[in-house]
C-alpha cells in the first residue's frame, strides 16, 4: 500500500445480501422458539441454543457490523481476545455444581409434590 492509499468510504455488501442475512436470522430465531417446546435434556437444549446464538452473532458481526470486510488484523485483534476472556470467566463455574451438592438430602422418600420439574 502506497502513500495514495486512503480509507475506503465504500460500504461493501448489497441490500439484497443484507435482506438475506436478516431472513436467516429470523429463521434461526423461529427454530429456537420451536425448540423451546421440544422436550429434550436441558444440556442438549443449552448446547443447541448456544450454537444457534453463536451462528446468529457471527452473522451479525460479519455482515451487519461489517467485520468480514475489514482488515484481518482488526478481526484478529478483537475476536480471539474476547473469546479467551469469556472462557476465563468460566473459571468459577465448577463451583456451582459443588454448591448444588451441598444441599440436605432426605433419608426417606419425601411425599410426591403435584408437579415435578426437571433439574
Amino acid at each position, binding site marked *: 500500500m502506497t502513500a495514495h492509499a486512503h*480509507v475506503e468510504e465504500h460500504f461493501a455488501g448489497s441490500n439484497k445480501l443484507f435482506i438475506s442475512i436478516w431472513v436467516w436470522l429470523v429463521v434461526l430465531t423461529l427454530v429456537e422458539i420451536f*425448540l423451546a417446546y421440544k422436550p429434550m435434556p436441558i444440556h442438549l437444549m443449552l448446547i443447541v441454543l448456544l450454537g444457534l446464538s453463536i451462528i446468529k452473532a457471527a452473522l451479525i458481526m460479519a455482515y451487519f*457490523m*461489517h467485520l468480514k470486510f475489514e482488515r484481518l488484523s482488526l478481526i484478529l485483534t*478483537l475476536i480471539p*481476545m474476547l473469546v479467551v476472556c469469556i472462557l476465563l470467566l468460566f473459571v468459577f463455574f465448577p463451583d*456451582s455444581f459443588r454448591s448444588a451438592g451441598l444441599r440436605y438430602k432426605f433419608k426417606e422418600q419425601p411425599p410426591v409434590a403435584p408437579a415435578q420439574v426437571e433439574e
Partner: protein
Amino acid sequence: MSTEARAGHFPAVDWEGGAFPYRVGHRKLGMWLFIVSDSLTFSALLIGYSYLRASNVWPTPFPFYPSIVFSSVMTFCLLSSSLTMVFGVSASSKGDKAKARKWILATIFFGVTFIVLHLIEWQHLIHEGMRPFFLPEHWVQVFTTTDGVPPSPLFGATFFTITGLHMFHVASGAVYLLIVALRVNKLKHEDIEISGLYWHFVDLVWMFVFPLIYIMSVDVGGHLAK
C-alpha cells in the same frame, strides 16, 4: 483519509498495514474496543446467571402468552432495526444523507417498539408477583421439587438485571441514533457507521439474552396454568 495520505512520509507505510494496522479511524477502533468490553459485561452477567441456575432449583415459569409471544415479537423488532440501520449506513456511504436519516429514524422506531413491548412484558411479570428477590407464592408451590427444595428466589434478580441492562442499552442507543439522525448532514460517513456498530451490538446481545433467559425458562408442561 487525509491522515493516511500524510503518513506517506513514514517509512512504516511501505509495509502494508505498518502505520495503519487496522485501516479504520480511531473513533471506530474506540467503538470496537468499547463493544468488546461491553460484551464482557454481558458475558459475566449471563455466566453469573448460569452459575446460579446450575446450583439452584430454577423455576421455568414463562407461558407461551404473554412472555414468549412478546419476546419473539421483540426479537423480530430488534432484527428488523438492525436491517434498517444497515440500510441507513449503506445510503450514507453513497452520500445520500436524507435517505440515511429516514432509515435511522426507522431504526429508532423499532428500538422504541422493543422497549415498549418489553415494559409491557415486565408489567405482566410484576403484576404476577415477581420481584428481584422473591417469587410469586404459587410459583414456589409449583416449582418446589419432590425433595422439598424450593425454587431460587434469585430468578427475578437475574431476570430484571440482565434484561434491564439490555433495555438501558437499547434506550441509550435510541438517544444516540436520534442525535446522529438530527446531525446527519454534519457527520462523516464513518461516524454514522460507528453508531450502526453500537446498534448492531445491542441486537447481538439480545441474541444471547433471548434464548438463555426466555427460551430456557419456558413452562413447557403448562404447570402454572393448571
